């Protein structure tokens, strides 16, 4: 998403063809296997538990926990799925989520990170040695001794600069070839000019050599580059993820014969068969069979919807209980899933236009430094006609203005703030996400899976007789319907042993039926079980023989911390909006519980995105919090977005920040930290500009010595880093 060049973005990376990146990603995925996020691990026992459990899983070759990143990387045979592994971990009490392997591309990121760290180390050691020699020169070494020290410094500095400065030279060269003036051009120019001038002075036995300045410049810049690199993650396109959800093949019915054909070969009017558990390959109308369909991915509705002859279904919905025959109304490019992917793609491309504070700074900075240095040269040459002195002054100006502190200003703050938010359970995926988060003034929530946990739970089960519960447990275990599964889990938690049933079978679209001690028992839709009033709450009915059916109600529990988060946001003056695809009653109830006045139910994905666009048009900066396929376009359209770790891949890809834990409470904190971080970044800019304001006139007057340059550079870099650390 964020490929815009920033203060130290590598233009070569930006310019690299997308195809290459895709290939790299594929290669990385093959090598690294599965990466799971473990938000709750914190000690040696946790490490042991997780590694032992995973290693004992068939097919797993190795598992290694990284406690610093709260992750485990698993190398496993191709058959092992991330979902199965996280289930095993959840069973022993460690919630686990798969994180996008592209986002965390471990091998590739490691290699590049280590490369930068190595250059940083080399520059650091060289800097220390040269500084030792320079201290002697500064304290008054004369003639031969000084020349000798300069020569030794040169012998250390030149190879070091060639090696450690390579990232800057490479990206400056790429920027020049693209006819741009990035931050790396003045940096490279300063490095090259400083070494050349110093080497010349050393030859001539001159007084001032800037080897120490050049190497420490390189060191500080690399430090900034490394921090920046760590806060940057390879972005994945949510639109691609959505396209991946599409079912590639469908079963076509023609003249009573079923043939499996690619989606592209389907035409409007064809008949297609969809088995229970399958995803709808096309948009269509049901012509045969009854079932229930789960459209929560597309619409956010919690309740499965009954589907029979004449029902309209969309691609991407899941068929739950019975086989269905569909007449195709739209396939491939025209299907609703594809239209949604297009919507997301449009939103994503609009978003890359964000310019970070660092970019804005760099745009001002690079030209002014060059002009200043050129003016210094021209001025001094015009006044003194002394070429050597003029070049010396120009080089000093370049060295002193070189953006050491500026290069550290943003990455140091972002690293410090991301670290702090990570400990609170938020993973920042994008370097500029914090800046955008700081600008947010409106928060839009999705309901299902975001403000609620997205899993219905039966309520008031204790009110039912124990015997009925045993029957319900037996019936519930016979079905894979989400409500049945939730009921079975809740009943086993209540230690209800299932009764022995005969002739257990599922009636697609209606419920499940069996015989208990010679009496017919049913669990399912109200009308089918024999209840004569329909209610708008999520409920299933239990009928035993001719007795009056009993209602078992379900509620989708609010996410822990959701109410506190909404309260805190409202107290701090944020506008809070709830947009849900669910029906009016549950949305209204949740809005009332959480105290959200501005809510809308029955929102389609494009309506959500349109609402966000409208808010943006009005001048609001929207933070979107959502988790579903139906939120993906809205997440991509919003100024900044957050999704829970349990969200769909596409939604996570579209968002800038992932909420790792289940608790929503860190959300207001994140906004606070983001604003604090932006303030620190601005302070850092002011600090480094302040140093320049003092040092540049000194350099322009030709009064700067290597000692002054070293002092100004180190002092400003250290102040900026310390200021960033104040965030903790």
């Amino acid at each position, binding site marked *: 998403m964020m490929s815009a060049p920033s203060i130290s973005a590598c233009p070569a990376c930006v310019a690299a063809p997308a195809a290459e990146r895709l290939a790299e990603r594929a290669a990385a995925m093959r090598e690294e296997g599965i990466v799971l996020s473990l938000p709750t691990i914190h000690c040696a026992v946790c490490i042991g538990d997780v590694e032992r459990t995973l290693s004992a899983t068939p097919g797993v070759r190795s598992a290694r926990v990284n406690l*610093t990143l709260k992750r485990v990387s698993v190398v496993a045979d191709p058959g092992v799925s991330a979902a199965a592994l996280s289930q095993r971990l959840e069973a022993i009490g460690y919630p686990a989520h798969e994180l996008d392997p592209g986002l965390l591309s471990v091998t590739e990121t490691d290699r590049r990170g280590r490369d930068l*760290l190595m250059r940083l*180390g080399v520059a650091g050691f060289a800097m220390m040695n040269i500084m030792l020699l320079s201290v002697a020169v500064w304290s008054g070494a004369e003639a031969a001794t000084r020349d000798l020290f300069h020569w030794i410094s040169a012998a*250390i500095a030149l190879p070091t600069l060639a090696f450690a400065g390579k990232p800057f030279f490479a990206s400056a060269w790429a920027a020049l070839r693209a006819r741009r003036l990035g931050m790396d051009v003045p940096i490279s120019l300063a490095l090259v000019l400083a070494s050349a001038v110093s080497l010349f002075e050393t030859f001539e036995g001159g007084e001032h050599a800037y080897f120490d300045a050049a190497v420490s410049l390189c060191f500080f810049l690399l430090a900034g580059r490394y921090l920046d690199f760590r806060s940057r993650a390879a972005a994945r396109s949510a639109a691609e993820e959505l396209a991946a959800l599409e079912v590639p093949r469908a079963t076509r019915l023609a003249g009573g014969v079923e043939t499996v054909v690619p989606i592209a070969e389907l035409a409007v009017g064809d008949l297609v068969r969809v088995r229970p558990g399958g995803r709808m390959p096309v948009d269509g109308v049901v012509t045969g069979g009854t079932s229930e369909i789960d459209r929560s991915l597309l619409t956010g509705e919690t309740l499965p919807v009954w589907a029979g002859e004449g029902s309209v279904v969309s691609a991407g919905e899941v068929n739950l209980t019975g086989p269905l025959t569909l007449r195709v109304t739209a396939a491939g490019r025209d299907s609703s899933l594809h239209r949604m992917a297009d919507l997301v793609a449009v939103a994503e491309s609009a978003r890359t236009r964000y310019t970070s504070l660092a970019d804005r700074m760099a745009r001002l900075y690079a030209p002014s430094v060059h002009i200043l240095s050129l003016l210094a040269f021209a001025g001094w040459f015009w006044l003194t006609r002394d070429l050597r002195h003029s070049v010396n002054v120009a080089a000093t100006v370049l060295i002193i203005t070189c953006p050491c502190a500026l290069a550290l200003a943003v990455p140091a703050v972002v690293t410090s703030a991301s670290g702090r938010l990570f400990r609170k359970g938020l993973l920042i995926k994008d370097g500029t996400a914090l800046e955008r988060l700081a600008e947010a003034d409106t928060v839009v929530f999705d309901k299902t899976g975001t403000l609620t946990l997205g899993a219905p739970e039966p309520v008031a089960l204790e009110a039912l007789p124990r015997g009925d519960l045993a029957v319900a447990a037996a019936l519930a275990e016979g079905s894979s319907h989400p409500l049945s599964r939730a009921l079975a889990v809740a009943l086993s938690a209540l230690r209800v042993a299932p009764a022995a049933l005969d002739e257990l079978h599922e009636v697609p679209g209606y419920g499940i039926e069996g015989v208990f001690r010679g009496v017919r028992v049913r669990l399912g839709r109200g009308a089918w079980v024999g209840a004569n009033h329909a209610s708008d709450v999520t409920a299933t009915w239990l009928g035993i023989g001719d007795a009056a059916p009993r209602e078992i109600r379900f509620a989708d529990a609010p996410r822990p911390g959701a109410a506190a988060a909404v309260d805190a946001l409202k107290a701090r003056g944020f506008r809070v909006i709830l947009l849900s695809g669910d029906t009016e009653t549950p949305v209204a109830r949740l809005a009332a519980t959480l105290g959200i006045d501005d809510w809308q139910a029955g929102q389609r994905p494009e309506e959500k995105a349109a609402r966000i666009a409208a808010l943006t048009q009005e001048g609001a900066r929207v933070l979107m919090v959502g988790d579903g396929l139906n939120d993906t376009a809205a997440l991509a359209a919003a100024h900044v977005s957050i999704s829970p770790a349990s969200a769909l891949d596409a939604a996570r890809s579209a968002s800038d920040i992932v909420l790792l834990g289940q608790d929503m409470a860190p959300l207001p904190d994140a906004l606070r930290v983001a604003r604090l971080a932006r303030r620190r970044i601005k302070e850092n800019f002011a600090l480094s500009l302040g140093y320049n304001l003092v040092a540049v006139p000194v350099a322009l007057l030709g009064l700067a010595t290597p000692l002054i340059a070293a002092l100004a550079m180190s002092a400003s870099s250290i102040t900026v880093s310390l200021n960033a650390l104040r965030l903790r």
Partner: protein
Amino acid sequence: MVILVYLIPISLFLGGVGLVAFLWALGNRQFEDPEGDSQRILADDWDDRPKP
């Protein structure tokens, strides 16, 4: 000042030793998971025999 002839090479050599040690540690992935490594010493696994 003759002492410099010894001292400068010695200081450079010591600096070089430090650099090599750093590069070795980096290549050996010692900076990947500092927090985890500090916790792992508390685990009892492989206390009795080396990890195969």
